[in-house]
């Protein structure tokens, strides 16, 4: 790890320099919020957002992504054969990503890239990307990253982490990819002596500003069935309207649905984000639905996030504490509240046989 000092103009010049070697994606203003997207030519990098409304997962894993294309036009080469859709996997710089969203990629990676399966679209999109994070000096009241395994200065999943300091930034260059990006951006001024201590102090201060928590410590010690059969699910799920806002805003929700679409002689196979909150998500071809009601769907979402994920992938929760689902749920379903119900639940007759 190397510490660099950047002025605001170093950053601005760096972004322009990066455009020569990278596709640059960053938070862009949209209506009353920000979303990640390609930074238009001439546009300045705007790092004013507390966080983007939708997580940065869409950069690697778009809401709708063409996988294959096919043509039925006999005049075309390869007609009637599915071929890979054209994609751009040239180097990409993702600027201004918050530590919670960067860490999310490390949580979803075991799903898309493991010994059994390698999802080519996710893996190539991820591998061509270099992540330049922005530390959170003013976290929101709904941020609970420190109890979800991360923190406002967490470096997991990042190649560079910028922290605003004085008249500029202290940049931690964390990986080889980060070194290559810093070189392309022309960032080379070593941070002054004492920068490391300043960074630690800022980190401690930011950590202390996280006032919200998620309680999950006791969940790994409980059995799946005891939690599954716990009596609180109906009450916890009552308000839920089974929309997809939580899952679509979430940086770690990874489920998708594959669809074919055709127009005249041309067709594509695509995948679109799907949501376990939708009844259609589990509807079988037979008409049977194994998760037939909203209690079953809400339970699935939280059991997956807080129990199944940790059991399957060796600890932790499938949540980075970004707080988006908490802030934007239209009916105030709160993962922190449900986690504390799960964490505190002790079945009456756990050993009565």
């Amino acid at each position, binding site marked *: 790890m190397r510490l660099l000092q950047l002025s605001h103009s170093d950053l601005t010049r760096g972004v322009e320099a990066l455009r020569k070697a990278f596709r640059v994606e960053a938070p862009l203003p*949209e*209506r*009353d*919020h920000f*979303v990640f997207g390609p930074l238009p030519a001439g546009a300045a990098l705007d790092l004013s957002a*507390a966080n983007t*409304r*939708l997580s940065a997962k869409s950069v690697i894993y778009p*809401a*709708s992504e063409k996988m294959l294309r096919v043509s039925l036009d006999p005049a075309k080469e390869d007609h009637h054969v599915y071929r890979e859709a054209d994609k751009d996997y040239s180097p990409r710089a993702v600027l201004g990503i918050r530590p919670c969203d960067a860490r999310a990629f490390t949580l979803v990676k075991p799903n898309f890239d493991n010994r059994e399966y390698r999802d080519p679209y996710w893996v190539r999109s991820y591998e061509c990307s270099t992540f330049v994070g922005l530390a959170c000096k*003013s976290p*929101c*009241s*709904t941020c609970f990253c420190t109890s979800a395994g991360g923190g406002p200065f967490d470096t997991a999943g990042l190649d560079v982490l910028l922290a605003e300091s004085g008249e500029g930034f202290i940049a931690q260059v964390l990986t080889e990819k980060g070194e290559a990006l810093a070189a392309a951006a022309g960032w080379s001024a070593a941070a002054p002596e004492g920068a490391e201590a300043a960074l630690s102090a800022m980190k401690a201060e930011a950590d202390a500003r996280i006032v919200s928590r998620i309680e999950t410590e006791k969940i790994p010690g409980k059995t799946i069935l005891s939690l599954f059969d716990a009596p609180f699910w109906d*009450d916890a799920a*009552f*308000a839920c*309207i*089974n*929309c*997809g*806002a939580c*899952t*679509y*805003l979430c940086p770690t929700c990874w489920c998708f*649905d594959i*669809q074919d*679409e055709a127009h005249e002689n041309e067709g594509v196979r*695509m995948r*679109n984000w799907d*949501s376990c909150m*939708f*009844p*259609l998500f589990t*509807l079988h071809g037979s008409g049977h639905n194994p998760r037939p009601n909203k209690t079953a769907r809400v339970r699935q979402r939280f059991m997956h996030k807080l129990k199944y994920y940790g059991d399957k992938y060796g600890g932790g929760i499938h949540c980075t504490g970004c707080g988006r689902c*908490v*802030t*934007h749920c*239209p*009916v*105030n*379903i*709160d993962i*922190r*509240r449900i986690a504390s119900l799960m964490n505190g639940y002790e079945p009456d007759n756990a050993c009565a046989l």
Partner: protein
Amino acid sequence: MTTQLTENIRKIAARLLSEKTVDAVIGFREGSVPLMAEPVIIRDPKDAEGLVFDSFCGVNLANYLPGRKERIGIAAKGCDSRNIVTHLVENQAKRENLFIIGVPCTGMADRRKVRKALGGDVSSAREEGDEIVAAGPAGEVRLAKKEVLQDNCKTCTHRNPVISDEMAGEPVPEQEGVDRYADVRAVEALENEARWKHFEEIMSGCIRCYACRNACPLCYCPTCFVDDSKPQWVGKSLDKTDTRTFHFLRAFHCAGRCTDCGACERACPVGIPVRQFTKKLLKDCEELYGWEAGVLPGVRPPLDVFKLDDPQDFIR
């Protein structure tokens, strides 16, 4: 601070449950985040103590009625009551199974407006008289509630329930002389191309999460047309035509039924002014049929019936 309305709702709910007038009561409990309250169903009179009512109870509770078989007590604001009337007309609820606790309403706070006024994250909020006192990055701010109302509440003319079994408070004065359709007229005045652009712009950024549809009490179809898979009518990607099809068709399904409760707009996580799709239809129904949805118990909405004196000048 517990308001008198909250106290009264608690008393009525506890009595209804302990006297077994109803099996359950649907209301709100305190939210876990500022400016929100969570819809809740209670069955034990003791749980009535957890019920609340304030300007953060914007969710339309009528949305929780379809499909319920038990006898339900429900706290209903003006708009909720109009959607209950609509449910009764459309056979989604039975009058004899409902005990409507009427809640006079002075409008609901729009959490986006409060967030904007504070310049960011809202860490706490409470209501004091006609003010919302909210704390944000720059400290505590007192906001006049009328400045941060949901847009639909600003032009609401049915703040008092249109139907109830017992009122939880004295009726509030209805707003007089509000211009309900200034926004619609502005769109009507646009040339075709500009109008199309207007709708394209407000629809941009839609993520097809269906929060608008699912928050809407009118959208109780067992399978929505966008979810049908045999056959599949609408594509599932973020293709503009498919997104338009969803929003426009849903709006037309609500013609003559929409009460402008604002649930759709309130629910949208990306700030789409969803009411812009339905409001022209409200205006048309009012002008063509003298109709306001959910106001007359037992009367079917105009697009649901045929009458000899229906205006026919648009059929050519």
